[in-house]
């Protein structure tokens, strides 16, 4: 059974349709790259999965449970329930909590009961992925640099006891060196039977590191674009 199965999913904001009848599935253990230009629906696809678009239609099944359906209002009303059922999001930009310490920001990601009880252990494993945060645990998150804020945002998503991680544009607005490190760290995490979807504009960052790379164009998915672009060298060699 697929971890996430989307059938004929459309969504958008107001009178605008951004996602056009998507069919798409994620298998357990997969790490998927989602590439495409600005404004072609990458972020909207992620928002649709967690019910944060203005309206949506079509079936989204997560671990056999329907989390989609037809909806024309109540933006984000189902999001907490969907997140708690096992989907963690690291949103575009970083929706961190500026006045809370880094530690509290991370803890807030461990929302489900199981994750909350094991939050110390989880925090340690997040700190192994992002060592620069270790010395800043007690510092207010609003005072961090852009790269560190993004680490907090992604780290907060990793704190959750989730089966599916949705990471939206981890490299956005970061210096090339920092974004290479961040994406590399994301690609090294052991997912077990979970899965991860990384939306990214910068294709070379992902090439060779994901199981599948899907292209997003004008609200429609182009299947595996990774092979067609196979001759692009990985980012580390480019710089």
């Amino acid at each position, binding site marked *: 059974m697929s971890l996430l199965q989307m059938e004929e999913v459309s969504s958008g904001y107001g009178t605008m349709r951004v996602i056009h009848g998507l069919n798409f599935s994620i298998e357990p253990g997969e790490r998927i790259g989602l590439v495409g230009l600005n404004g072609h629906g990458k972020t909207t696809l992620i928002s649709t999965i*967690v019910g944060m678009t203005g309206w949506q239609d079509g079936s989204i099944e997560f671990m056999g449970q329907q989390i989609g359906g037809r909806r024309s209002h*109540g933006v984000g009303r189902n*999001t*907490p329930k969907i*997140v708690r059922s096992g989907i963690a999001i690291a*949103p575009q930009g970083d929706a961190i909590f500026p*006045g809370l310490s880094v530690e509290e920001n991370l803890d*807030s990601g461990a*929302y489900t009961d199981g994750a909350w009880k094991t939050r110390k252990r989880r925090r340690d494993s997040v700190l192994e992925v992002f060592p620069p945060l270790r010395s800043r645990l007690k510092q207010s998150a609003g005072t961090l640099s852009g790269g560190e804020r993004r680490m907090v945002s992604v780290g907060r998503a990793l704190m959750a006891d989730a089966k599916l991680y949705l990471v939206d544009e981890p490299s956005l607005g970061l210096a090339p060196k920092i974004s290479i490190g961040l994406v590399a760290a994301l690609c090294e995490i052991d997912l077990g039977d979970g899965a991860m979807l990384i939306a990214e504009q910068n294709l070379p960052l992902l090439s060779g590191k994901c199981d599948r790379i899907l292209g997003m164009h004008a609200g429609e998915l182009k299947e595996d674009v990774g092979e067609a672009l196979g001759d692009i060298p990985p980012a580390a060699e480019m710089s």
Partner: protein
Amino acid sequence: MIELLASALVLASMYGLVAVGISLTWSSVGMLNLAQGFVFTAGGYVAFLFAQYMAKNFSIRDGVILSLGVVFLGMLGSAVAGLVVGGLAFLPLHDRINFPVRGLIATLAISIIGTQVFMLIFGPQSKPLPQIFGIKRLKIGEFSIAYGQIGTIVVATIVLLLVTLWMRNSRRGLQMRAMMMNPLGANMVGVSVRTTGMIALALSGALSGLASVLLGQIFFVSPTSGVQPLIVGLIISLAGGLGSMPGTVAAAVLLGLAEAVTARYTEQSFVPFVQFALVIAILTFRPRGLGGVLEDVRE
């Protein structure tokens, strides 16, 4: 001197309880709750009904059980009133456009209707509450302080301390603070804005209810007795910095002191002037208030 300090701290306790409630709702729910006065009065009337019932049916007019009952039911009554306000003004409106303005209007309506309902049921006369701390006075040298004053200060301090600790250390507290900083982000880590908002409203209601019962020791409960605490609570929560417990408490002490000193050495009618002047001064030098934890006040 001690008497002056005592009356200042009594005022500070009452204002602090109301202001912390208003500050909590304003910063986490994102709604300026103008019905907080209605919530405040509701607790006073519930406590009054309980005292009346006990006096009529069991002839109990004082004692520990009555006191505890009055405090508990006052808090419960206001917490329920807070949930009613949430059900009418928060749940149906919070994800519509322009929620801050709509919420403001909705709570204003609840406040006006609530006052009239109390007027209809209980009449315009003031109702007394039983003296929960007794009527004796503690003598220190040539000064004397009423037990009621000491009790008010102690209870308010303990409750505010507990709420502060809860906000700082518990999971719900973390959720609530997360929601204050970034409601969208909180939603994305699985914090239900609706549930947390209702908890905030109930909690701020309970704090107002406690203040209402404590104020009932000095004044009587009347349909409009929530107006003054609402106004002072609002300016204190602004001066203290929205969402900051220590800032709000500090502002409450400052304004309580200002009120006590002004009333003692000049006239009671000068009190609002001094209070507002003080708040304007604070906000001039610290635009985010004394505590100022929020990066930017929610629009």
